[in-house]
């Protein structure tokens, strides 16, 4: 039987994880454009790592049997709480602080990364659990994820469709937004919270590495390919979905880790986009009818 035939015959194995992966690819592709435009790619790295820390901490606390907190220490709840707190912290205004935002984000990323490895060492079956959190082993997803991930993604999409113009305005020109008495803090908090919730839910389902990749690479590829803002969002969603689907496909037929496979597929799209533009085929960016001119 051909690899494709094997893949099709085994659909009952990959159907649910692929649905979760494709939905994650779509919402991460969409949100990733904000992440790339706001030049806060490191924020998404830190959030995925903090979310992983939440999952690892939950495993650890369950192992030490803190029964009183059993509902709070569930991987989903703890990951969600820590990620949202971190997003709120990153959204704080620190204009006159001696430490840059980047410095604070780096602190969050490094502390969470170190803590995940230390906790992994303390968890029974630690190495396997931590590896699946960090790199994604989404061959199987929890039954609830088939509802939770699309549900969270749908809510995030609705929020962003309603406030699309406002998020773009505040991200692009915060000074004018302040002049127009826009609720900048509220919008930033809403933007980062929506990213944080999606990251927390997706990281638990897929792992930190593929979620970080889906939040970053499709957006960077589409920003490279198009000059139209709305087309950038659409392309990023499409690339995110295709990266997840192809990632599952190659993972299945080549027996390679799913998270790494999704990440490499997203990277491949980026490289293809780069070559396509640089080789001259993209002298006219998608969605334009004029030659691109930098000033």
């Amino acid at each position, binding site marked *: 039987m051909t690899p494709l035939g094997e893949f099709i015959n085994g659909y009952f194995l990959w159907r649910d994880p692929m649905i979760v992966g494709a939905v994650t690819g779509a919402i991460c592709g969409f949100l990733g454009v904000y992440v790339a435009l706001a030049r806060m790619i490191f924020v998404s790295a830190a959030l995925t790592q903090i979310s992983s820390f939440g999952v690892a901490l939950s495993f650890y606390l369950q192992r030490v049997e803190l029964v009183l907190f059993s509902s709070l220490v569930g991987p989903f709840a703890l990951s969600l709480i820590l990620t949202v707190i971190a997003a709120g912290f990153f959204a704080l205004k620190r204009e006159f602080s001696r430490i840059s935002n980047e410095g604070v984000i780096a602190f969050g990323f490094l502390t969470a990364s170190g803590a995940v490895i230390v906790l992994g060492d303390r968890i029974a079956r630690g190495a396997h659990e931590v590896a699946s959190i960090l790199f994604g082993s989404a061959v199987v997803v929890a039954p609830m994820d088939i509802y939770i991930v699309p549900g969270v993604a749908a809510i995030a999409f609705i929020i962003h469709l309603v406030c699309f113009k406002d998020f773009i305005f505040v991200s*692009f*020109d915060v*000074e004018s937004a302040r*002049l127009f008495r*826009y609720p900048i803090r509220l919008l930033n908090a809403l933007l980062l919270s929506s990213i944080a919730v999606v990251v927390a839910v997706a990281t638990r389902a897929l792992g930190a590495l593929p979620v970080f990749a889906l939040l970053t690479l499709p957006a960077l590829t589409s*920003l490279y390919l198009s*000059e139209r803002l709305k087309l950038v969002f659409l392309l990023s969603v499409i690339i995110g979905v295709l990266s997840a689907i192809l990632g599952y496909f190659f993972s299945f037929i080549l027996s390679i880790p799913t998270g790494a496979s999704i990440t490499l597929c997203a990277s491949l799209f980026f490289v293809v986009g780069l070559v396509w533009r640089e080789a001259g085929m993209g002298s006219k960016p998608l969605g334009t009818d004029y030659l691109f001119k*930098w*000033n």
Partner: protein
Amino acid sequence: MSSRLIELRDVTLGYDKRWLLGPVNLAVERGQFWVILGPNGSGKTTLLKTMLNLLPPLAGRVTSDKNGVTFGYVPQSKGFDHIFPVSVYEITSMGRYCRVPMGKRLSKEDKKIIESSLERVDIIHLKNRAFRSLSGGEKQRALLARAIVGEPDVLVLDEPTAFVDIKGEGRMMELVKNIQPDNNLAVLMVSHFLDVASGFADHIVLMDKENNFFQAGEKSKVLESNSLDKLFGVEQVMDRARNE
């Protein structure tokens, strides 16, 4: 609506609790064209931000018309992050957001006003172009369209000709001068260039935080004093300005 739009009373300028200049007094009225002049680092932007209520004064009061004042703002185009793939139309439409509540879309009427603003500054043919692909002069005109699309009471320009060639500078200033009378706009402009101030303004602010120097008033009175010489240290500049 009263003609006084913004008033600074015994205002001490500064930020992060650091004193910069003051106390200063200033009142901007409808129809006036103000230029804020001073050397680099003299506190011009701090004054502008204080007047716009973007920066709280360390002391004193900043009041605006009780009916509320709408601002149209032309920032320096180099301040924008060119990673954003926004078109001229999209960037112009942002100026209309002061009239469109959060979460609401632009109406047909809004879209008509955006088109007419682009026509007004003569860049309607560029509306689908990426903002980042425009020349310096074109960018400034797009930002001017964005500033007027919200039908403001005060047009605020932060060094609008800083990165524009002479031809573009003249065109930009002529556009501002033509737009001003339409809605009896007050214009508030920060500039380095004395010729711009003398050619277009009717009121001038001269300031320098280093010497705690602040003078504001009608152009003729401010230019008659020896303030310019004090501030820039060039007598010839004064002569040129007086002759214009």
